[in-house]
């Protein structure tokens, strides 16, 4: 677990370091000084380079809807401890995101906790 935590810290650093550089979009749209946790059911989960894409079915005060999030690169998510098969469609997951600056749904995933309690990217 210690090594995973170290890897998580490394991933967060990498996110901080490189989120503005690599991706389909620059990270200017997200506020990396903020963290928001979102719980949902996985509708789509793709960890890829240059960036991954995650769609969760989320239910909150605004109602139930599918929200799309962007993740860091496959390399960095793997370096943070993620492995293929860790999650699948239909699983519950809690993600930590840098939210969109304009307040709209979505954001940039900086870590997550699976239904089994496996943590990737988050500090604790």
């Amino acid at each position, binding site marked *: 677990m210690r090594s995973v935590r170290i890897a998580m810290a490394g991933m967060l650093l990498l996110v*901080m370091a490189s989120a503005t550089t690599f991706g*389909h979009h620059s990270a200017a*749209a997200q506020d990396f000084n903020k963290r928001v946790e979102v719980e949902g059911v996985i509708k789509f989960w*793709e960890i890829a*380079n*240059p960036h991954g894409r995650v769609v969760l079915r989320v239910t909150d005060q605004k109602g139930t809807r599918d929200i799309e999030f962007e993740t860091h690169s496959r390399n960095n998510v793997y*370096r943070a401890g993620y492995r293929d098969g860790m999650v699948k469609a239909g699983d519950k997951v809690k993600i930590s995101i840098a939210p969109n600056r304009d307040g709209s749904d979505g954001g940039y995933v900086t870590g997550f906790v699976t239904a089994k309690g496996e943590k990737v990217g988050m500090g604790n």
Partner: protein
Amino acid sequence: MFQKAMTCTRVALAIAVFSTAALAQGNRPDFSGVWTTYRAPGAPQGRGGGGGAAAQPALPYTPLAQRKIDEYQALVRPTGETPGGYCLGTGMPGSMLGSGGYPMEIIQRPDQITIIYEAHSEIRRVYFGSRVIPVADRLPERNGYSVGRWEGNTLVVETAQLNEIVSQRFAHSDQARIVERYTLSEENGQKVLTAEMTMTDPAFYKTPVSETKKWSMVPNGFLMTYECNEPIWQKRIEELKKAAAPAAK
């Protein structure tokens, strides 16, 4: 006394000659290994790498450079798109200044040093001596063509034949020339590689611009393959399957 002094002088001379000969025979500092962005012990967790969002001092762009950068930004700002999103590497000097915070690997041999940046699997080859080809035969590209030489224990790399790039902080024209100076040191128990970069490009800069990047060795480290195009190809295969489906019925 005179004989003793002469003996000492001869010994010192012999050591100097031996050292020079050793260097000439390729007994150079070994930069081989995996390196990651240097962070001093206890330093706050901040932005590292070459693409951080922290405020950076303005660069002395020429009007031509400023116009080209502004035109580029006007195109991509609305969607926030980047070259990386299209699996395109940063190119020099962004690659050597941190490569987005990803690690790099150096493979060193006397006639060639190969540098692999994990992000986008960018590769640079630094050639020495007889491996250097004539300028007319060099293929311009985003990381240019690099020629190395040793000044004592300092590796000096000169890079030219670059494509014009306006999508990175150190934008440059195809006339840019970049000089890097690499030195090894030991800091806080870490093996540290310091890379000093100076770029001269009268078309884009009123004066030469410089930046320093420090790397620390990752003992027994490794790079991951940065495969970026496979998802695009898989999506294309799915499209082809859908297009072929009606015909198969």
